[in-house]
């Protein structure tokens, strides 16, 4: 009888340890900031614009950002440091917010062209914005971000493999996913991944092309060099991300 009782106790303790170990293992990721040059990826030019407490407070509230998602090295304690993910995200948000000459002054303003509605749309469809080393369950470096419906996770490649304009476009792209549109084209487009069937579907790729195209046509507070780059990116995305090419001469 005593042996049976001992056996029961041991089993209970073993199960307890197993469950706790599983939970702990799942919860912790570690990573290192990869080599990067803030000038070369265009991040540094936004330094003066993003380092503003009122703006930081606004973005923090709009994107439901939380300390536990951005501390532990991600920049919570140094929000102007462009070497860290938080400031690099703010730089992208700054670009997204102020691309239009008459930029939207609140997140309820959807009027005007894509440069005006890109930020309000992103603000109202992203949900909680989180930073992680990598997508849980995936190989580190495999994904740049993931839209979960009511929140968006951003990973190391988003912060350090994309230039600032691409980071801004990616936020809109992910927000469109949370707005209800998954990629629906399988691998049927020339780039064979993240494809949308066509323009009429109004998916993330359409939003991205429109934002880049409008940025090239009407972007402000930037240079014609960056606008040309955005136009060429729009051309490439159009020709590679749709199963049926929209056929625009961008």
């Amino acid at each position, binding site marked *: 009888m005593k042996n049976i*009782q001992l056996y029961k*106790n041991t089993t*209970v303790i073993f199960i307890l340890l197993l*469950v706790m170990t599983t*939970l702990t293992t*799942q919860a*912790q*990721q570690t*990573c*290192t*900031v990869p*080599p990067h*040059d803030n*000038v070369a*990826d*265009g991040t540094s*030019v936004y330094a003066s614009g993003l380092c*503003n407490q009122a703006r*930081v407070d606004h973005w923090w*509230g709009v994107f439901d*950002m*939380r*300390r536990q998602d951005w501390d*532990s090295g991600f*920049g*919570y304690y140094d929000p102007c440091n462009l*070497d860290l993910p*938080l400031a690099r995200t703010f730089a992208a948000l700054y670009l997204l917010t102020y691309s239009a000459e008459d930029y939207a002054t609140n*997140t*309820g303003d959807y009027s005007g062209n*894509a440069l005006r509605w890109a930020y309000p749309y992103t603000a109202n469809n992203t949900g909680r914005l989180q930073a*992680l080393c990598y997508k849980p369950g995936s190989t580190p470096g*495999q*994904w740049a971000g993931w839209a*979960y419906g009511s929140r968006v996770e951003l990973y190391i490649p988003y912060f350090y493999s994309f*230039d600032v*304009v691409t980071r801004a476009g990616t936020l809109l792209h992910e927000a469109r*996913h*949370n707005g209800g*549109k*998954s*990629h629906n084209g399988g691998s049927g487009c020339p*780039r064979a*991944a*993240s494809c949308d069937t066509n323009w009429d579907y109004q998916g993330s790729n359409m939003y991205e092309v*429109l934002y880049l195209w409008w940025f090239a046509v009407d972007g402000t*507070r930037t*240079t*014609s*060099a960056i606008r*040309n*780059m955005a136009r*060429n990116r729009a*051309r*490439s*995305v159009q*020709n*590679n991300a749709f199963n049926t090419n929209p*056929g625009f*001469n961008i």
Partner: protein
Amino acid sequence: MKHSLKPLLVLLLLVVFVVTIQGCENDNLDKSIDVTKTDESSEKASSASSVLTFDESSSLSLDGLFAGFPSGNLIQEHLKLSMAFGKDAEENYQRSLYLLRKEKNIAESLAGVYQKIPTQYYLYRTMIIEALKELRSDESLKYLYEIASLSIPRDTEPENPEIDTRTDEIIIRLTAVEGIGILAIQKNEEAEKMLMRLIDHEDLSVRQIATRSYLQTPFGNVEEKMKELYERLPQQEHWYITTRSTDIRKVEHPEMPKEFDIKINETEDSPKIR
């Protein structure tokens, strides 16, 4: 013994309860994935936390790269201004271009820097080719063609479906084609011949821009050139045989709501600027 077992059982029940709650949350998230990413992994979202460290390998500066070239400092300063932001950004950029154009052998220096710059700095590489293009000088032509005619290398991150480095390479090629187009419009016959050759490029976007630029040059008769291209290009690509670009205002746009609820979360833990 029975008494000592009770707290353990209570603890176990608590753990089971937490796990169940987490499972429910993940189930909900899975439903969200179905809405937004039906074609991709249905892997469960996790409440995992991350720790990021910054070490000596994290910092990198390309400053040294420019020092070895004549006009290296001028080029580096120009690249910074080309990516600048603010109400004076374009004015400063144009002033820098003016200075660059006055510099001797600047096309050769730009091409030299381009060759040395690490591949993954796509934005910098694009800006160098943009500078070569904006010199609007015949001296740039051979370098522009060298770059425009190169094949698009394979995606360097095939394991990452969201990063396609071919797009970055295509952008660089397109910038070079635009530069050749500018020179051809300025009546450089060699540039026009290069455009003609680029119409056979492996990449659709390069073919598209080469075609439009070719049709915009002052050489020959546009209708005849178009007729020639209709015969030369496959029928499914005839849509880009045109001299005009599409007016974005006439393109289908998504309907945006006029009214909706604005949700700004109340928070007191926003990061503080020091």
